[in-house]
């Protein structure tokens, strides 16, 4: 190949990378651009503070932010012990076959589309929750958190299992030589040395939980209130965006969704920074 063509191809590679990297910047700028009117009017502060009440002219997204935080937090709260338990089961406790089976099951779960989770939940989980609470429609924070936990569980489990498996073998051998049982190995050796990986997995799952749209759109009830309890219906930022897109586009309501987008973007950046600090990316690149 002639050197000039080679140079061209190599320039092409560079251009592709620049294009890919700049997509992120474009997304940020568009969000900013479209929400500028709100910044200019100085309305941004009340926007973040107030509730959503079109009749009074308030288009605040505070209830939605609370909704996102609460639903995501509960999902993580539910998913973490399950995640740790299952990972422990896969890599430490069970005989090889069961561990492999469980791992395959979790990998299978990564392929389940979100919309299928929500679809089934509407017909299975929602009536159940309604009967348990004896009030409400069944579409509430709890239902959404449970399904969300199910969604992010594979992320946590696969991450944790990898973290557990990457504990240096000589640590484990040393522990065994000292007479440790599998449980003791888990508690005293594996978890302490893999804690970085564990936290990374949780942070990643948190990102996924906050960013998910369909589960909260279809199962959390989309009410405009600030949820005060598990049985209250709530709306997340993501569901809010989806709902509003389906309506007008010149009104302040419309511009509000871009601010939601901005909030989500900032959140993503924070997660990425947190993961960097934890060296997640170092670990991933070494693998």
């Amino acid at each position: 190949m002639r050197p000039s063509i080679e140079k061209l191809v190599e320039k092409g590679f560079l251009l592709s990378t620049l294009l890919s990297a700049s997509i992120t910047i474009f997304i940020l700028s568009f969000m900013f651009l479209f929400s500028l009117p709100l910044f200019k009017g100085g309305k941004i502060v009340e926007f973040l503070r107030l509730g959503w009440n079109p009749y009074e002219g308030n288009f605040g997204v505070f209830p939605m932010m609370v909704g996102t935080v609460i639903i995501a937090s509960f999902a993580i709260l539910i998913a973490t012990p399950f995640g740790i338990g299952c990972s422990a089961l896969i890599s430490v406790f069970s005989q090889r076959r069961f561990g492999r089976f469980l791992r395959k099951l979790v990998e299978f779960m990564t392929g389940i589309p979100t919309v299928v989770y929500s679809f089934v939940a509407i017909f299975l989980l929602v009536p159940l929750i309604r009967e348990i609470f004896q009030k409400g429609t069944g579409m509430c924070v709890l239902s959404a958190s449970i399904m969300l936990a199910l969604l992010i569980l594979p992320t946590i489990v696969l991450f944790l299992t990898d973290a557990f498996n990457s504990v240096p073998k000589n640590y484990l051998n040393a522990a065994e030589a000292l007479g440790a049982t599998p449980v003791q190995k888990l508690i005293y050796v594996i978890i302490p040395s893999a804690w970085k990986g564990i936290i990374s997995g949780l942070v990643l799952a948190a990102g996924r939980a906050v960013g998910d749209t369909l589960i909260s759109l279809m199962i959390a009830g989309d009410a405009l209130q600030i949820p005060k309890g598990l049985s209250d219906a709530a709306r997340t930022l993501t569901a809010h965006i989806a709902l509003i897109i389906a309506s007008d586009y010149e009104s302040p309501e419309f511009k509000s969704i871009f601010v939601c987008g901005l909030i989500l973007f900032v959140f993503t950046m924070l997660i990425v920074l947190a993961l960097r600090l934890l060296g997640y990316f170092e670990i991933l690149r070494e693998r």
Partner: protein
Amino acid sequence: MNRLTEYGITIFSWITGIILIGAIGVLLSFLLYKGIPALNPSMIFGETRALDALLLRKAVVDGLFPAIAGTILLIITSIIWAIPIGVASGIYLAEYCNVRWKPLFNFLLDVLAGIPSILVGLFGFAISIFLHRHLSEHIYPCFLISSLALACLVLPYIIRTTEQSLTNLPFSIKTTGLALGASRLQNILFILIPYNLSSIISGIILAIGRCAEDTAVIMLTGVVAMAGIPTSVLSQYEAIPFYIFYISSDYNSQEELMKGFGASIILLGICVFLFTLSNILKRKVAIRFATHT
């Protein structure tokens, strides 16, 4: 920590495992129980004859065929955008990138990977408004915008797998070609990439799976409840995940609901198949590395 707590932890782990298996089992059996009865040709083709529909002679108005066609076309177009740019970026980052810029690129791409899908959809929507206002009155959320947005969504998968697979190659493989006189580019194109094909393809398959199942992006960029087969890139279209979403709240009869379950099974089947394929390829690669050094 005493014996009792340790036993407790063991039991706890087993319980979580069993609950998880139970939950998934219930989910799947419910889906299959409700959906399998609906799986027949009329679910897909409605009242039109299959041959007429496939040859595009007649439109299908009450079956899944337009949605299935829409999803397939969407996947193909998105991948066409994503593969060249993704693989090229991966190669650049792995082989050519200046150490000074690498952290910046990595950061931007990691943020892109973590961005919620609805934000990517919002971005696509914003672009269509922008183009509508400044370029042409005829542009609105459509097939083209959806496929571009989906490409943005899956780009990080392809870039990451390409880049990682190239950097993780054993030193000997990386340098043999160069030692024999090949130029850098020749080395990459004719030796490294072919060697790594399984990894790269596993990344592409993952991207395909993501395109098939994503709902949030397409919801904001052009998918509608009824549109037939898209005849131009600027037209609206249907897709399977949106069909499921739409049916879940808007069903008018038990038959329509059953179609929703049937569609869920189809989508589940497609996605599970793709993700499993991707994992098998990844494992094949891992085995090869384990036996190499």
